[in-house]
């Protein structure tokens, strides 16, 4: 068993649950890994604090994921709203060299986010970029999915594209693909910087 713990927090309507399902689909269906996705269930769908969690078992020999919820410390924590920043503390994210990352949206988190500076983190104005570059904040999801594909390396780019085709309406596929590539590019830049910073 080699659990990869993912948690995404924000507010209802941002596409958190869709993003978590896309991660689960790419890992579970395309890559045939064991996966469990859980989500906030209730009035959150209509706004308010919302969350989703995905556990991927990177060990192909495993038969079942034991505990279905993501366990702290997380491999990847995505924070998309001001209110959600409260749950970020340095002990909730793994500190290993190859894992443990905080991704946050600097266009929705307006206050100071001091906790972020204490860990490996990637802050991008995701919603703002989605609106300015692609005309709608919904493309933020594809940007995040692109970032996710590059930083986690759980699934291949082919798997990610197959997933996008499954999840987004056909008429928006092209724009979503552009947003996905944009996200990938941003993540690659981040990883290069990280490498340079370390060396």
């Amino acid at each position: 068993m080699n659990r990869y713990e993912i948690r995404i927090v924000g507010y209802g309507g941002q596409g958190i649950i869709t993003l978590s399902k896309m991660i689960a689909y790419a890992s579970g269906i395309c890559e045939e890994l064991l996966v469990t996705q859980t989500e906030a269930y209730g009035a959150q769908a209509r706004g308010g604090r919302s969350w989703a969690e995905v556990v991927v078992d990177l060990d192909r020999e495993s038969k079942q994921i034991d505990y279905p919820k993501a366990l702290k410390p997380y491999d990847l924590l995505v924070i998309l709203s001001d209110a959600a920043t409260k749950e970020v503390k340095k002990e909730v994210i793994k500190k290993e060299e190859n894992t443990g990352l905080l991704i946050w949206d600097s266009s929705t988190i307006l206050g100071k986010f001091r906790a972020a500076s204490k860990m490996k983190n990637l802050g991008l104005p995701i919603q703002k970029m989605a609106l300015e570059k692609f005309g709608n904040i919904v493309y933020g999801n594809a940007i995040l999915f692109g970032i996710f594909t590059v930083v986690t390396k759980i699934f291949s780019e082919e798997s990610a594209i197959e997933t996008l085709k499954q999840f987004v309406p056909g008429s928006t596929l092209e724009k979503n693909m552009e947003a996905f590539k944009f996200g990938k590019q941003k993540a690659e830049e981040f990883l290069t910087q990280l490498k340079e910073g370390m060396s």
Partner: protein
Amino acid sequence: MSNGNGKRFLKPGKYLMMGNVAMAEGALSSGLKFFGGYPITPSTEVIEHLAKRLPEVGGCCMQMEDELASINAVMGASLVGAKAMTATSGPGLSLMTETISMAANIEIPFVFCDVQRCGPGTGFVTVPHHNDVGLTRFAGNGEFEVIAFAPMSCQELFDLTITAFNYAETYRCPIFILSDAYLGHIHEVVNIPPKEEILKRVIDRTIPEDTKGAKFTYEDINTHKLMIPKPYIVGTEFCPPLIIHLPHNQDGVLMPEENSLRFMKIMIDKIRDNIDKISLTEEYKLDDAEIIIISYGLPVRASYRAVDLARKKGIKVGIFRLITVWPFPKEKVKKVVVGAKAIIVPEMNYTGVIAEQVERVTDLNIPIIKVPKVATLHHPDDILKAIEEVAK
């Protein structure tokens, strides 16, 4: 209307499925033809999914005006030969108990999915709480046995629903699937086997054959052993057109009061005599275990992790899992707990319904530790803490 059987089975392969949907697909694979229900959180996705899928297989999904009408519609459909089910949550279950008791009396096969939420009463509607475990055992007036399954993953929701329908056909008693608000909404990969494989597992509803005029007999005419006749299909040649919802004799018609004990024996012993066949359990690292965890449903998954962590610390602990909660496998449990240092029973309820059953069959000198959790899942650390406490 076409019979639409081609769409009964999903194309074999892997699907990312929500628990409630996996359960509904399991029912369709079993040959479900009628769903009667009234939507209630957190079971709503079941009726939503079946409203779309049942017409595709030539079946009928009927949203009734309330829970009472729903369960009565299910009974009616089953009596005329359709595999039928309902899904609800705690408040719906309490409304339906009157008819469940009647169905037990007439021995109508049906499957009941209870996606449990926090009670009592309306409670908290969106959070899990295994607080209907006791109610399912005693769901209605009178004495009768029930069978209840406690799945813990989406794959099991699919597979055990097929088993549940088979049990309904075979044992003709109320069959419950104990899901919960959490399990019902988890998404996991479900492996759908080819239709040939599913069909090998499914027991179909067939018209009972006339065996020398003793079609519904409870006694084998040669050996005089107790047996369970096939379910009625009202409207077929040998089936009584009038089903009496009173204690019945072997032909399904009213019997004299003085034979009530014999009727009770039929109703109860059909389950108790077959408990070894009915009861499904699973063991994990029990061979050398000194501390035994007995659990069911989602807490088992947290227990797996807790056991692995405890074993790394040198604590000999294992799990005895109840896949079927009712009938309670008391003989199996008695055997498993012999010589145990302690028993830990993590349950997603406060009172410990199954812990009390374990107490009933265990030596008084073996401590039984309840690990209650309400409205949320057990964290593996909750169970690990209990293990470490007793290992001291």
